[in-house]
């Protein structure tokens, strides 16, 4: 999935991609793009702008971002220059639901005022999914509870979606792409439903359609999602994400915490060794 996301990242127009909430899969995709096909893509995170690729980790990601910055700016500057303007490249968002209209939900399951589950909230995604060039919503599962005709609450919704209507309003044209463990869906217009862009190797079109709660346009020939190349996988596993943090996005509660403790033990040991080394 990281490889597929990274394909959406381009250098055109010197747009900026911002690392926001901790979404290791998206981080990995950005680093992969920067280390392979998009070395001059602009990345920003926290108060750093113009960062180089970093090794992913849990407790050190912020520090790595800090260390590689070519400039520091305030959140207000990145708001003004990227988020509310036309300089945003790609927004990867891990959402709980995707609506047939492209809406994402990071707020609640159930009724907004009496929620069954109160989710974290959308941070900057409402403006960002509207203003950036490309929106990639990614999901750790593909089922009818996730891909729904209408989300319980639209934390953010790209509107309009169609390129012509967007350009007329001074918005960047660009698609809403959904990437799941089964397939890649894509929405380019306002009148048409999401269409099935590709199915992952070994997945049938039927399986995708059955597990999608909203209407899906299926072209006559559905391509198979490009498999990651050997070099891509090597860069990802050996350099970008040796701790395999991208797995976070696919683990549930207890399993995830256990995995996190495992990673943290390795991070602690590495830091501890530095302290010992300095001492001797």
């Amino acid at each position, binding site marked *: 999935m990281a490889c597929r996301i990274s394909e959406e990242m381009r250098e055109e127009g010197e747009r900026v991609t911002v690392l926001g909430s901790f979404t290791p899969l998206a981080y990995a995709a950005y680093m992969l793009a920067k280390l392979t096909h998009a070395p001059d893509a602009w990345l920003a995170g926290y108060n750093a702008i113009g960062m180089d690729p970093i090794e992913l980790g849990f407790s050190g990601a912020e520090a790595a971002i800090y260390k590689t910055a070519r400039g520091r700016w305030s959140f207000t500057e990145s708001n003004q220059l990227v988020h509310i303007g036309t300089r945003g490249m790609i927004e990867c968002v891990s959402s709980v639901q995707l609506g047939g209209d492209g809406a994402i939900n990071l707020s609640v399951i159930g009724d907004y005022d009496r929620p069954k589950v109160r989710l974290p909230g959308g941070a900057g995604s409402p403006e960002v999914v509207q203003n950036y060039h490309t929106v990639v919503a990614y999901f750790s599962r593909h089922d009818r509870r996730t891909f729904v005709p209408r989300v319980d609450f639209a934390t953010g919704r790209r509107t309009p979606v169609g390129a012509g209507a967007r350009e007329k309003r001074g918005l960047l044209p660009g698609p809403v792409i959904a990437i799941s463990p089964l397939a890649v869906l894509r929405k380019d217009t306002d009148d048409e439903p999401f269409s099935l862009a590709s199915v992952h190797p070994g997945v049938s079109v039927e399986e995708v359609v059955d597990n999608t709660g909203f209407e899906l346009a299926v072209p006559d020939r559905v391509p198979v999602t490009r498999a990651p190349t050997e070099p891509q996988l090597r860069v990802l596993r050996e350099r970008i994400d040796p701790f395999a943090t991208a797995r976070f996005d696919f683990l549930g509660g207890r399993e995830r915490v256990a995995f996190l403790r495992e990673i943290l033990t390795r*991070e*602690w040991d590495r830091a501890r060794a530095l302290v010992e080394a300095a001492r001797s």
Partner: protein
Amino acid sequence: MSIRSKTVALSELPALVPERATVALGGAWFANHPMAAVRELVRAGRTDVSGIALLGSIDVDLLVGAGALADLTFSMVTMEAMGMAANFRRAVQSGELAITEVSAISLQLALEAAGRGVPFLPLAGPEGSDLVPLHPEVYGRASTSFGDEDVPAVRAIRPDVAIVHASRCDELGNAQFDGTYGQDPELARAASRVIVTCEEIVSGERIAESAELTRIPGFLVDAVVEAPFGAHPCSHVPRYAMDAWELLDYQEAASDPEAFARYLDRVRGETEDEYRARAVSGDRGQVLSALVEAATVLER
């Protein structure tokens, strides 16, 4: 030459937060929340604070869990990879905590407007969100004599108090941040009263030597508090990384009412100095710093 010092002890901080005040907290995600101040508000037994959190984590969850918040304006409260913020989630689901959910960018612009002294700011982007019709007091539309019609706009939000954590500060309030500072300068501009906690209080000469690191000019600041490891268990990069181990312990406690009651009792039963001696004991501080050193840039 200065005759006026703004330094106060951390124990005096709660008294600087008026009853029912709206309080904006600095930091973002697990970075640089003013945790020493949060703990001191919890120790003071506050129950009346009207919180404003742009990108909250343990700061908000602890305040909610301690019953310190009367209500909350926020864009996100999350424990990131550790899971959902348990106290926050429980309090909202039960209806105990009144919330105003505003997207981060609109909320920052609302604070920016207050800092600039203008009643609103135009922007682009929120229109597709269901948050917009929910909060017409924040999200609106503007038109101008230039022929602009129906431009999205947010209304100024002026917190009564902002609390942020800096790397160093002189006694006049000139506050420097070596690394991550989130939207702390914007909070300082927006609020009627500004409290800066910092890793260390230094002389004005020391500040002048690295003036480019000053993100909050002292004329905006009302009180300066020295609080080493004042962001712990959150990060204060590049001085120390987040203490993810402590955060995980917190997260486990927050998921269980009895364990959380014990957690609260312990925080309330100790001073901040005692907290620091306990939570950053031995060479733990050095390890948290080494985590920053260990963070790896792949290529330039």
